[in-house]
């Protein structure tokens, strides 16, 4: 047996022995919360995962991870999926496991790693990110939230927006201006601060899709320890660039064509609602054509991810193809929601109530929420600026991005 096969067998056995069967197939809220009946088992499972280091398995063991390789981490999630198990910790930690943690591992001091990473890896400390501001969206570098040195602390004043989960987070990683006289990108720093303090106030934002995890966050003489500055003073822009790369990586996986698992594929949904002609083709030929375009887009996207993975393993230089993945994933996700809605006709535009099936209502919320995909993490247009400038080497646009 190869090392990986041994690892797979051990992983399978450990999950069998430790995953509470009561949680099998149970659903998890968006923030990784459990319902009341399974709360105790849920907490047991979290603790076992945390002790094993499998909340963030690739992190070093000294910081709460398990120090496993990427292929081993993949095996862990595959084996969990096979047994109906799941890892709730990345959701419970907010932005901790996916974005803050990897960036702290790269830029943090040993002291910062020891202080912050174990809480993230165990799912006990939830993190939010204070990046965008009302007047600094796509043009993030024009942010105004100010941090002044005051003794051993920074004194922070300003407003952040789109801080996901700010109202339930314990810590925040914030991008702040520490030198107003420097050029836009040169006077910015990245600080970490606790949310439970007098100078921090949060206010949830309702979206077109209904309730959302987003908040406005107000800093009014909020405090961050000077020792919680991540990376050098006034060099927060390079820290956040890495952070956003971690964000983009987590956004480039489009949902597989037609959904996976027990969910019906999009073409099955279409056949149910629209019907077929005697040859078995979808009765609406225009819809059939556009559905085909969509499924081809989706497969082309998946094949591109596979190609990049193979390039990374092989001897060739990884091509610039990765730069196109966010926009490609965006088109597929938004296109899928629009097609689903069109297929469902008047049943596809319900807002709430028993007249509509759960999957009909779910698609409406997905459709509305999906409009954000081309806005966050560098908008569709900003992505195209990046490709034209950084990948294709075209000159700086008159509108900079």
């Amino acid at each position, binding site marked *: 047996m190869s090392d990986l096969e041994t690892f797979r067998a051990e992983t399978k056995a450990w999950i069998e022995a430790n995953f509470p069967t009561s949680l099998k197939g149970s659903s998890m809220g968006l923030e990784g919360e459990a319902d009341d009946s399974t709360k105790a088992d849920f907490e047991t499972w979290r603790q076992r995962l945390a002790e094993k280091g499998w909340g963030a398995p690739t992190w070093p063991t000294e910081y709460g991870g398990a120090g496993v390789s990427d292929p081993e981490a993949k095996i862990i999630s595959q084996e969990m999926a096979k047994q109906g198990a799941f890892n709730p910790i990345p959701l419970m930690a907010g932005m901790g496991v996916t974005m803050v943690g990897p960036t702290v591992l790269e830029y943090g001091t040993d002291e910062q790693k020891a202080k912050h990473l174990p809480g993230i890896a165990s799912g006990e400390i939830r993190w939010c990110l204070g990046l965008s501001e009302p007047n600094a969206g796509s043009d993030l570098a024009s942010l105004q939230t100010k941090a002044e040195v005051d003794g051993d602390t920074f004194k922070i004043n300003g407003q952040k927006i789109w801080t996901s989960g700010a109202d339930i987070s314990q810590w925040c990683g914030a991008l702040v201006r520490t030198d107003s006289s420097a050029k836009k990108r040169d006077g910015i720093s990245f600080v970490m601060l606790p949310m439970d303090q007098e100078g921090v106030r949060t206010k949830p934002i309702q979206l077109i899709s209904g309730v959302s995890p987003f908040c406005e966050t107000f800093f009014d003489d909020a405090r961050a320890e000077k020792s919680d500055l991540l990376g050098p003073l006034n060099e927060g822009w390079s820290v956040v660039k890495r952070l956003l790369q971690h964000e983009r990586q987590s956004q480039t996986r489009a949902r597989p064509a037609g959904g996976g698992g027990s969910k019906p594929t999009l*073409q099955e949904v279409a*056949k149910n609602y629209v019907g077929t002609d005697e040859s078995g083709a979808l009765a609406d030929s225009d819809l059939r054509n556009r559905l*085909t375009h969509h499924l081809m887009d989706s497969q*082309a996207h998946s094949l591109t991810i596979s190609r990049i993975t*193979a390039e990374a393993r092989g*001897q060739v230089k990884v091509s610039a193809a990765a730069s196109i993945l966010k926009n490609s994933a965006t088109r597929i996700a938004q296109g899928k929601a629009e097609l689903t809605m069109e297929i469902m006709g008047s049943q596809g535009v319900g807002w709430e109530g028993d007249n509509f099936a759960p999957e009909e209502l779910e698609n409406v919320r997905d459709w509305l929420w999906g409009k954000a995909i081309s806005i966050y993490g560098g908008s569709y247009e900003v*992505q195209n*600026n990046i490709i034209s400038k950084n990948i294709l080497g075209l*000159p700086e646009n008159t509108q900079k991005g």
Partner: protein
Amino acid sequence: MAALTEEQSMLRDQAKSWVTEQFPVQKFREMRDSGVETRFMPETWQGMIEMGWTGILVPEQYGGSGLGYLTFGVVLEEIGRQLTASPLFASAYVGATAVMLGGSDEQKQVILPKIVDGSVILTLAVDEGPRHNPANIALKAEKAGAGYKLSGSKTFVLEGMAATDFIVAASTDDGIKLLHVPADAPGVSREAMSMVDSRGYANVHFDGVEVGADAEMGDAAVLEQVLDCARAGIGAEMLGTASQAFDMTLEYLKTRVQFGQVIGSFQALGHRAAELFGQMELSRSCMEAALQAIDSGADDVPQLASLSKARVGDFIHEMSNQLIQIHGGIGMTDEFDAGFYLKRARVLEAAYGSQAYHRDRYARVMGF
């Protein structure tokens, strides 16, 4: 670019330098202006034979190198970039594939070495009307003794004037059969089709042409497999042609000055280039996946071949239009090469099924 083996990388480098140094698009222009009937230069074809490209698919026991479809794709892409004209694709790729998939041991032994040494140019004759429709073949092959008697016509036959041999898709009492017919058999006649891309095509007529039982080379299932290989392979050439069009356009965006600045600094054009780049990368993934699927004997070749032909077709269509549009007036002149790429694009799109054909086929394969 797929993660290539050392052998594939070397072949790509060889193809790139040979094509750019010896048979660049300027040579294609000279060929077009010369009016040569075969629509390629003999020295181009001879060079390819000498480099062993005609044997890339053919197993070693029949005189080839058996390097496979992705490897052939690497060469086709470079040829596509400079529009290098030759019967390489029609004979050493499609023709050889048909013999390998449908031929008896004896047919392989007789024909494959001659494809490799270039003494045979074997091309597939399948289309009969203006639209690719291989499921409906009208050309009749009636039983005559132990063999067949063929009556009917084929159109859009690649390298049909240069061909020494045809593989003809014919309708028999037992369904569709592929039949090997020498071009000099009594009753075979042909005339050149002068197409917009200035390459070699023919209408071929079969008027009571008799062949023996040993002419059989497979049935409808083999035809479909051969066509899928052809679709995947022509995708590689198309992507090469389209990639060159992209590179020419990008270069122009960086050098052409209007309103006091290079036009690539205008965001409308920068974003258009970014979108085209995205489509190019997505098409490449489809094309390489289709060729790799053939090499590995995967069962989703039909789906991937249709995906590739449709996606690469969409890309070359848009890219060739943008090549002209972004170059402006100069792109409209015959003196500049852009028109060659536009004209070639449309013929390649029509070959072995258009984008619409393959979207329909893909949907059928996916069950809707």
